[in-house]
């Protein structure tokens, strides 16, 4: 029996080591890509893109605000799918992915709200308008996923906590299409997507489109890189807790 098990265990260990090596290469590629794109994105936004005739330089905040507004949709969609898969398969890896993506999504949403307020103060003369449906539904979205993180924090590593968080991660996603369509369903001072896209092509000048695309690529790489890092920290945290429990058991026995 031992002679049959030995090669099987060795193959599994080799496969695990290979996966870890590919993940490391992927992370290095993502990190290098983000490091290259970040200065290009800043240069394109501040120097290459043309100055808006109506809003002036403050309009350049668009190159931060739009990618930071789209990526939380992606992050919370990942939470939504991973939460469904966790409830279906009961595999902790899906739960960890949902947790990691929610954390990064909240960071991006926070930065999106801050850049929006700075843009609003610079152009409208006020940072916030509670009567605006896009702003209010986005704030609700932020509150939903901050609640998700608080729930994770206070329920620890319990299975019931993970289940409750998965339900919140699925239900909370309902707000994403509401945020997106708020500008078309209700009267809003916030610009709609026609500001960016007109009849399927870019409504912005070519240089501005380039700046927006480079910025979007840089933030996308950062989102993936950050999610992998948070996923790793959560996996290690679980391993540390399991080890600590074993150490406490060993201390109790001796």
């Amino acid at each position, binding site marked *: 029996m031992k002679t049959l098990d030995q090669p099987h265990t060795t193959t599994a260990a080799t496969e695990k080591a290979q996966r870890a090596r590919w993940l490391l290469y992927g992370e290095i590629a993502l990190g290098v890509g983000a490091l290259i794109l970040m200065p290009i994105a800043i240069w394109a936004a501040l120097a290459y893109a043309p100055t808006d005739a109506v809003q002036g*330089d403050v309009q350049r905040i668009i190159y931060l605000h739009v990618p930071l507004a789209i990526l939380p949709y992606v992050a919370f969609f990942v939470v939504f799918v991973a939460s469904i898969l966790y409830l279906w398969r009961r595999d902790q890896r899906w739960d960890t992915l949902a947790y990691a993506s929610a954390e990064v999504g909240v960071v991006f949403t926070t*930065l999106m709200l801050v850049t929006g307020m700075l843009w609003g103060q610079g152009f409208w003369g006020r940072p916030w308008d509670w009567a605006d449906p896009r702003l209010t539904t986005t704030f609700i979205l932020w509150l939903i996923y901050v609640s998700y993180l608080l729930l994770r924090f206070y329920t620890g590593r319990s299975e019931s906590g993970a289940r409750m968080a998965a339900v919140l991660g699925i239900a909370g996603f309902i707000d994403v299409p509401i945020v997106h369509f708020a500008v078309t369903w209700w009267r809003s001072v916030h610009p709609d997507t026609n500001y960016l896209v007109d009849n399927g092509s870019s409504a912005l000048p070519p240089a501005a489109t380039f700046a927006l695309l480079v910025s979007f690529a840089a933030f996308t790489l950062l989102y993936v890189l950050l999610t992998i890092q948070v996923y790793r*920290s959560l996996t290690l945290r679980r391993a540390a807790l399991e080890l*600590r429990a074993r150490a406490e058991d060993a201390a109790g026995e001796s």
Partner: protein
Amino acid sequence: MGYLIAAFTVVWVGLIAYLGWIALRIRGVRLEIETTRALLDEREPGSEQA
């Protein structure tokens, strides 16, 4: 111009600080794992294979 500079500073400094904080979190947990493993090995010799 002030709002533009503030926005770029908040976003890029914020993201880099967040990345640094995650790196510190990972380092802290790795250190905790190593310490616990050493402690466990003292109590259960040969447990690192488990």
